């Protein structure tokens, strides 16, 4: 058995006549940070949706942590240790920051109705534990967020909402984290700030495996070990960012011939 966290073979997804993913092979090694790049509509988010169980694949197989998980439900995949964020923020804005983050711990908490309704003391202990955990996790990103644990999420700025979303994905201690364009809607300064925080968190949590979709090449250069470039649902190139960035096929399809260097420097 190989040591890959994620193994996709011949993955195919069709939307009517469009092949969103066309027999895609993808491997993600343990402890790796993989960048997933490619033009809009190339199938990056579709891949995330299939891997996290939101869409069902029309062909091919997925192995997660050595186990066949093709066509499993999102819930089943979550239980096996998969977590993700979304391209467009999917926080429950009317709920508190704590409510939003603790949703990510559902697979850890999972206590029954009787427990919640009638064993208030046990619940209070559990609650105390998770208030601390949420506070600690948020503090790594932004210490000010710990004082806003019970403010509604809508009162936060864009970058803090992103931090909360990433914390929600991290608090369940996943084996694989899928980050769908964390820089969307943020300035370049905010983006590189967030990436520095992410790397700091990852150092604290042990070597978490991450797949990251990004259009900001500076981010990709800064954080990834390896990149996969998609176009029209196919993998057109794979390798370290420096190699991928100079590949003529990638330049033609995505980066543009004039691409020389990222606007955001390394951290």
């Amino acid at each position, binding site marked *: 058995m190989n040591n890959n966290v994620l193994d996709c073979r011949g993955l195919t997804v069709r939307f009517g006549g469009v092949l969103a993913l066309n027999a895609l092979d993808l491997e993600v090694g343990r402890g790796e940070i993989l960048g997933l790049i490619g033009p809009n509509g190339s199938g990056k988010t579709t891949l995330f949706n299939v891997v996290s*169980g939101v869409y069902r694949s029309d062909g091919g197989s997925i192995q997660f942590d050595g186990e066949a998980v093709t066509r499993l439900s999102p*819930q089943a995949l979550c239980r096996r240790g998969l977590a*993700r964020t979304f391209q467009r923020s999917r926080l*429950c804005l009317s709920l508190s920051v704590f409510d939003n983050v603790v949703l990510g711990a559902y697979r850890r908490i999972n206590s029954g109705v009787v427990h*919640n*309704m009638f064993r208030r003391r046990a*619940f*209070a202990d*559990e609650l105390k534990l998770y208030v601390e955990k949420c506070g600690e996790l948020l503090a790594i990103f932004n210490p000010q967020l710990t004082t806003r644990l019970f403010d509604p999420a809508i009162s936060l700025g864009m970058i803090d909402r992103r931090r909360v979303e990433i914390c929600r994905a991290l608090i369940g201690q996943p084996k694989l984290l899928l980050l769908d364009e964390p820089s969307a809607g943020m300035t370049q300064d905010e983006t590189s700030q967030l990436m520095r925080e992410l790397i700091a968190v990852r150092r604290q949590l042990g070597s978490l495996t991450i797949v990251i979709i990004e259009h900001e090449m500076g981010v990709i250069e800064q954080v990834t070990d390896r990149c996969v470039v998609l176009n029209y649902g196919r993998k057109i190139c794979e390798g370290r960012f420096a190699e991928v960035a100079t590949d003529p096929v990638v330049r033609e399809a995505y980066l543009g011939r004039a691409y020389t260097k990222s606007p955001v420097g390394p951290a």
Partner: protein
Amino acid sequence: MTSAQRAAPWPAIIAAFVFAGMLAAVAAIDNQRLVIALLCVFAVVWMAAMRLGVLARVERSAGQYPHALRGAILLAALAAVALLHEDNFGLLMIATVLLYATCCIGLTIQLGYAGLSNFGAAGFVGTGAYAAAVFNWLPWLPDPLVLVGAGLITVIVGSLLLLPVLRTRGHYAALTTLAFGIMFGVFVDATPVLGGPQGLKLAGITLLGWDFSNDIRVANFVISFYANYVLLALAIFALAIFIASRLDRSWLGIWLDSVRLDETASAVFGVNIGWWKILAFTAGNFLAGLAGATYAQMMGFIAPNNFTLADSLMLVSAVILGGIGNRWGALPATAILVLLPEKLQFIQEYRLLLFAIVVVVILMASPAGLVPRRIRRLEPGVVA
């Protein structure tokens, strides 16, 4: 928790007595002009309470002193009963308000927490009422069992709807439940065993050997037998508040809210959406059935036209008027929706029009309802 957030217990206590006093006054007074004047006072007081942050203070103190709140509500209710002691109709109105409010809390769990639209609430209330009537054919069956049994029957009948409710969302789910509400009426109307359009009679409640059709005598003071029903309705309302508040103020409340707000995100984080929807639907239907059974035994007579589409819509509008997702909003909202049409008999057919105008005006002034939902307070000891 900082000292600034520490509230005093008296705002909650005063609020309980003011509300009970208002309710008793409106229920007791027959003079039309006086009723209108009182309603205006009520509206002004409420608006002022919202604008000046008094309502928020009341809620904060109620949250921090649950025992004081419970005691105050019980005392205020007893005071209202004593005030109205010989006014049968007034007491009946108050018991009705409490039972409708119970049903609204059921709807709050469904609509406000889990996001399940239920436009057939009257059908579920009716199921409970008819179940109680059928249980009445077995005179040896003790009444507590009749009431709980009627709630369970409602849950079972409601579970027939689970499949469509789980498979539909938004407008479609609304239509499914709407259809149930209408089918319930048609079914009862066409079933001779259930009395058809003539309806069924029920016996009054006997609880622990105490016959509810007896007046209560305290020394020389006589209190109408309807007071029994007011106190029972209050107990059932308290049960509903207990269930809703324990649901809301635990992990379950967070899971239910995420199911309502974002099914995809919830599913990705492992939330078993179907299970939580079933739980909310079941809990809501149980409360509706329990309230319906009590209402039926209190009235002593039920017919299909007690449980029409109009009643379902009225219950949903009470939830919206009270503030979607705030369990306490059910009480002032049902007080307005039940008492207003009764007290405005003198304008005859225009009363529904006026009633609609009142609802619209309130929602224009306060779009989030009479008692808007606030951020969840999970456990006072752990979290401010």
